[in-house]
């Protein structure tokens, strides 16, 4: 019997999370097939970041399951899903050493030098990572994730703290990753970004998955009243 070639599709089944007895997410279900960029949108407190963390295995659900096609999304002993956080965590080392650390602890499938080159960081390689600009740090975080050769990349508002120039660079990197076959699941508050990048949209409100639709259909004619209000700029809470 041949080993599976992909960790996808990801099947999220009746996933729920609660803290101190209060339900914060779900139960919700959806499937993430291979390829493309899926944007998770919704107002603050909708559970977008929670959903990413649950899928990536950083927190344990109260109930429900995150089912990868292979156990824990691992192939050949390596985790094949990675995450980029809203505020990139930079170790107190140089940019190169940050990549080397990830490469050594997570058994990277790619070379550090290639990551520096690809994300335009070669000239910054010896600079302390924490002294890089916000955009450079986010590119370094992307390079670090890319090193791990992920099939799925989770991104938690990767451009929320960046200026338009840095945002454009990150979006270009994400589109290139998607074109190369990496499946991206990202949260964003920027509806323009969701329109530019996403093939599919998951709309969350108060922990519930209100809509799961093709991006073009969602933005043209949202089915739910909540989504219509959200897109119209109403202040949902």
């Amino acid at each position: 019997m041949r080993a599976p070639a992909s960790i996808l599709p990801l099947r999220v089944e009746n996933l729920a999370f609660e803290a101190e007895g209060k339900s914060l997410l779900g139960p919700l279900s959806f499937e993430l097939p291979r390829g493309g960029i899926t944007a998770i949108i919704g107002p603050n407190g909708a559970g977008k970041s929670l959903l990413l963390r649950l899928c990536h295995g950083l927190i344990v659900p109260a109930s429900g399951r995150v089912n990868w096609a292979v156990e824990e999304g691992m192939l050949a002993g390596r985790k094949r899903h990675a995450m980029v956080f809203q505020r990139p965590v930079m170790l107190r080392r140089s940019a190169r050493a940050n990549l080397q650390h990830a490469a050594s602890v997570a058994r990277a499938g790619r070379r550090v030098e290639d990551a520096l080159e690809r994300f335009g960081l070669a000239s910054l390689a010896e600079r302390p990572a924490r002294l890089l600009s916000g955009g450079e740090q986010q590119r370094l975080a992307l390079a670090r994730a890319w090193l791990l050769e992920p099939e799925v990349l989770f991104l938690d508002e990767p451009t929320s703290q960046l200026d338009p120039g840095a945002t454009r660079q990150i979006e270009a990197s994400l589109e290139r990753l998607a074109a190369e076959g990496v499946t991206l699941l990202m949260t964003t508050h920027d509806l323009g970004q969701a329109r530019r990048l996403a093939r599919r949209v998951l709309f969350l409100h108060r922990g519930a998955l209100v809509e799961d639709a093709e991006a073009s259909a969602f933005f043209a004619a949202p089915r739910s009243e909540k989504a219509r209000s959200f897109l119209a700029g109403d202040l949902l809470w």
Partner: protein
Amino acid sequence: MDVTAAFSEALGLIFGADPKFVAIVGLSLRVTLTAVLLAAMIGLPLGAWLAVSRFPGRNLVIVFINGMMGLPPVVAGLMVFLLLSRSGPLGNWGLLFTPTAMVIAQTLLVLPIVIALTRGTTEELWREYREHLASLGVSGLRAVPTLLWDGRFALATGLLAGFGRASAEVGAVLIVGGNIANYTRTMTTTIALETSKGDLPLALGLGIVLMGLTFLINGLAFGASRIGQRFAG
């Protein structure tokens, strides 16, 4: 003897590299550096482990270790004395009134400082790094080397603080070392003894060296922090 003459003679002892003087300084440094090294070997991993672990009674352990930072040296000396004295549990090792006993006593003094500072430093890093490291599949004890390395400049300052405490203390080494000439007599115990005898030049000379060490330690701590900012951000 007036102070000026004593001072002049003290400088002569320092710059003339008087053998007795050098032996006392050498023993003091050997004992203190060994104690700091031992405390680092035990305290760094223990402090980092405490930072990443959660278990019942952890807060109590932290309060105890913080309290031990203020352990009076004479009490540390008394504890080691009771442990190593002939009727004590380790009496048959024959270590009392040896440099080894002094190392044990000073390790006991420095260890809580190293553990507490390591815990504080690495716990702050752990809060910041936890999700990122978990994302890479690194959790709990496997994170300790990363945390220790990234806290290296702050930890170096902590070790220097420990060295400062150990090199300046007199009570513990006096009790467990016995202040035996040419064997367990350190800078601090010699200063105490010679001052009481009225032999000021030797006491002053050793005092100048101790002060020099204090300034050196502070300079190194300052340098470690500046280097940390420059190279680690």
